[in-house]
């Protein structure tokens, strides 16, 4: 059995037939080939799958594709135009905010949401704001620097 849904992803409208049990993250990765959104766990703890749904960040492994029906989604691929970088992507690069890069798309999407809510965050705001995102490589300090510098750049 499949269910028809329509979603807008990175500004493009899609009409799709999906299994009711399909997760949004699998829709993005498997059906739309947007593989920048990663899967790091099966218990909604790691945040590697974070995307923006209707304006706020969400772990796409906790959302069923059918729940996203009618919604508008931004993934890491849609954050900046081809050939350009979003200020936070640029800041992650400048500040060495990533090593293996696996947590990075989710970290950046959470960071985008964080900066919307706290345009001038303290260290503590960032540490708390990224509580739902795990990184095993960086020890977080360069990630915090990146978010801070993107905030500074946006001022």
């Amino acid at each position, binding site marked *: 059995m499949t269910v028809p849904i329509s979603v807008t992803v990175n500004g493009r409208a899609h009409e799709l037939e999906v299994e009711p*049990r399909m997760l949004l993250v699998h829709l993005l*990765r498997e059906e739309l080939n*947007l*593989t*920048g*959104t*990663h*899967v*790091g*766990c*099966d*218990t909604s*703890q*790691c945040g*590697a799958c974070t995307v923006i749904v209707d304006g706020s960040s969400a772990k796409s492994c906790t959302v069923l594709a059918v729940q996203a029906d009618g919604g508008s989604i931004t*993934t*890491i*691929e849609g*954050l*900046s135009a081809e050939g350009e*970088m979003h200020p936070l*992507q*640029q800041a*992650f*690069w*400048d500040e*060495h905010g*990533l*090593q*293996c*890069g*696996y*947590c*990075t*798309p989710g970290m*950046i999407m959470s960071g985008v949401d964080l900066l919307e809510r706290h345009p001038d965050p303290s*260290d*503590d705001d*960032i*540490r*708390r704001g*990224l*509580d739902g*995102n*795990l*990184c*095993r*490589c*960086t*020890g*977080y*300090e*360069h*990630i*915090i620097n990146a978010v801070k510098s993107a905030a500074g750049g946006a001022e």
Partner: protein
Amino acid sequence: MTMQATPGQLVGQRVRRREDPRLVKGRGSYVDDMKLPGMLHLAFKRSDVAHGIIRSIDTSAAEAMPGVELVLTGAQLAEIIPPMPVATPFPAPDHHAVTPDRVRYVGEPIAVVVATDRFLAADAADVIEVDIEELPAVIDPERAANGDPAVIHEAFENNLAVPFAPAGTGVNPETLEVEDESALNEAFENADVVVSQRMFSQRLVPNAMEPRGVIARFEPGNDELTVWSTTQNPHIARTLLAAILGMGQHQVRVIAPDVGGGFGSKINVYGEDFAAAAISRDIGRPVKWIEDRSEAFMTTIHGRDVIGYIDLAATGEGKVTAVKMRLIADIGAYEMVLTAAIPTLVAFMISGVYDIPVVRAELTEVFTNKMPTDAYRGAGRPEGIYFLERAMDMLASELGMDPADVRRVNFIQPDQFPYTTAGGMVYDSGEYERLLDQALENAGWEQMKADRDAARAEGRIVGLGMSFYTEICGFGPSAAMPTVGLWEHASVSVERDGKVRASSGASSHGQGHETTFAQMLADDLGIPMDDISIIHGDTGQVREGTGTFGSRSQVVGGTALLMASGKVKDKMRVFAAQMLETQPGDLSFSDGMIGPTGQEDTGVAFAEVAGFAYIPIPLPPDTEPGLSEEAFWEPEGFTWPFGCYITQVEIDRDTGELELQRFVGVDDCGNVINPLIVAGQIHGGIAQGVGQALTEEAVYDEGSGQLLTASFMDYQIPRARDFPRFELDHTVTPSPLNPMGVKGIGEAGTIGSTPSIVNAAVDALSGHGVEHIDMMLRPEKLWRLIQGGDA
């Protein structure tokens, strides 16, 4: 041949990483991102029992499901491939990719399903019926070592994988017999003070954020197998896959695309990899398997799990006269590629940074019904340094000495290098006291102590910790891993337009090789970094290699690249000399020009020489056209970075919660190629060490053998809010063993941070009569100690 070791324009600079633009845009390419035409998916039926005999398996319901192409039991798979390989010299029990007869840990594969869709494969695996006759689960390693409550492998009496491996003073290094106990006995008899403590470096789950994964594609037309794998070392994977499949190495290509972290856990070639390759060959179609996180907890190698009984003898002035460590390593149910070798590294660390005349380590390795252990970040060195640095603090408190002073009086002195420990390790270089003083100054040690005392006077529970580590880096030489070899391979090709393609057998999975290697080569060749591409992670493009582990890439891989670059430059000099009508020996490389040393700008452009080398009219005598060279390089010994970490913690009296308030570190990894990348490695290492101290512990249930901590809900890897800002600094003591004077930094943070934090917690609770606390320092444990109970 010449090599340039002097720091140039890019080496030593904070160069942004070249790998990042693709990764921050979500355009990386990890194994799970790939799809091949006609690809099928694997799912494994796994044991939910820790120990038992498989009586029957019924796969009929799974086979009947539409979309299921094939179901293979362990016994059926064992007809196609032999047991998996190990790379250690110790005897190992048979370990099948999928178990044919018995289960020995929860999560062990029992059968494999091949289906058209990943979720369908998982559904089908669910309906496979397995009847297992349960045996008692063997969980406690000290009981296991007496064969209690069961024996896991018949051929290994009392579950002893390695019954008794001694090392150090009085032990014959050839025969591994204890020949002379007198020095050890005398040291303890004559000691003014003896510190004795049982300690435990608990079991950990590596948890790279990208789970393991594999795609195997066998092409029946030409009998070639290509495997995309989340491996740290594609060449070792190729060698092992070829051996197990009975194929030639030339028929197997392993590609490690972007790999999402490894920390040692992706050194191994696992059962799922062998199964995928064998099945693809069997059915002639590509197959894919991606681990989920629950599987990663249960079935990717674990780390540590070593009990240490530590005895330390010293004089009243704090001079250590002997250290003895009796080590019991719980290696889990089987031996994997390096399993049995890892605990031997604990023994290698027994002297730490101290000039200790008598040492003895005695190691026993025990099978239990748990996931096998293997190399996890630090691999043996964290355990050894933890045991020693805890004991040094216990000695300091026994004698009422400052922890800095007890370390200072025992340091190996700069003029003693190269220094051979009583256990036979040769340290390359070190200047410990200078670094200690730097750390004390940066921390404001005297002020920290005064502040701690003032806080205590207010009734707060505050403690300070210190650790001083050294560690083994830059693995080789080959003698250290005789079954594999520990050199590295590199190639450097200058194309006819003057651009450079270089390759390294050291395969990056987050370390930034594409950047550091290019920085190094740009300086060496005198050309812009953008003119150089670094190729790694593909046995089809990189002729040979060993891989990335043991903090070896820059030391061994970097040097191999410099060697290959040196060979290319020698050849370019011959072409350039002919063009300039001069002698090759007088020519140097700078700013895109090759010319007389110091006046390179009067010479000929690098790109022009490259062009001439491919159309050499006339060809210089005794010279081949073209510019492509390769090199193998093996170090003559290990490198030994070192450092000191000072921490401050405060424990909440009411909740037992521990806050890490300050982390002051000074590291010395020799010369630094890219300070940004080195800082990142240190941060990440510290985070994993803090995780071991405070939040991480893999726990198996004593009765059932179930893994109780099999998700991020029950096993907490540190989050951003668990850390203060790191206050880091470094000194530079170059290694004399390689031309760049580098030492390696991948594991340092993990090794030094753990003992520092536990020392701080013990210091905090010293007023409560606490002398030692085993990790992890969970709030409940600390709260009980504050209440005056046992941990």
